[in-house]
């Protein structure tokens, strides 16, 4: 079997890394859409409910989703560069 040169090995490494990042970017985009959809759904529920403890529960979840999305958007930017 032909031995790979150092340059080929480096190329192979970067192409593998690039493929991995591309797959990660695609997964992340899908996930971010889902999180956004869930945030909108909870905001609608929040508007419907009058019960304060239930509303506090929704508010906490919305805050978490918002923070996760923020983290995700920053990561997506990083992966797109």
């Amino acid at each position: 079997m032909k031995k790979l040169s150092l340059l080929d090995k480096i190329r192979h490494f970067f192409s593998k890394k690039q493929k991995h990042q591309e797959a990660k970017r695609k997964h992340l985009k899908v996930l971010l859409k889902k999180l956004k959809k869930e945030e909108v759904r909870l905001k609608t529920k929040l508007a419907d409910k009058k019960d304060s403890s239930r509303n506090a529960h929704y508010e906490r979840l919305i805050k978490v989703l918002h923070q996760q999305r923020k983290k995700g958007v920053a990561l997506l930017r990083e992966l797109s560069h």
Partner: protein
Amino acid sequence: MRKEVTHLYENAFDIIIQVMNIEKDDLKDDDFIERLATIPSKVMTVDIDKLYNERIKLLYSEIIAFIARIQGGSDTQAYGDTLYDLRDASRDVVEAVKDIKHLQKNLLRYLVASNPFIQKEYNAIRQRLALLLKDLNAIAADSDNEALLALDGVRADLFADDALAGGSLDNLIRNGSITPEMATSLMNDSSYAHDVAKNLVNMAKVIFTPTDSMMREVQESLVLDS
């Protein structure tokens, strides 16, 4: 092995809801929190030691023995850290049952107490644990398998309106609404309930986590620091 640990959790789940005097069907209902706000007129006592021996102890021992046998074998590396994680998850389930045992005595006592203030606080513990179990059920049943992210929401909810954290316990003592003995019990039992929740969330991180490595990697990068 994951299936067996999940089975252990399901057994623990049954024990916990029995101790908390919660009907399984209550957790399916969307308005269950409101319904659980009504303090039960009578409470049922369950023999938790008997249930532990019958449904937890043997299964847990078998899980531990099986993991030990694999670790002694030659292909341990093929399992990576999964075995250790599963062993820890089983231990978390067992600890949760032990914590609920500590909580049982005062919960049953104060849920039917004549003092409405302490009754309300213990019912709040019951409601919070019910909410946690409902959330964990939803995560387990989630076909999209976004458990790691969903657990962030569970963590945020855990005892957000806890009597200790919110300062309402101080008010109850200051106003003479509850006795110092009741306050001590409430402090200890809030801590037990917190431990139950923490153990179950730790277990869920292992058991309900996505098996797809890319999905797990993406979710892990979005998980908030707790």
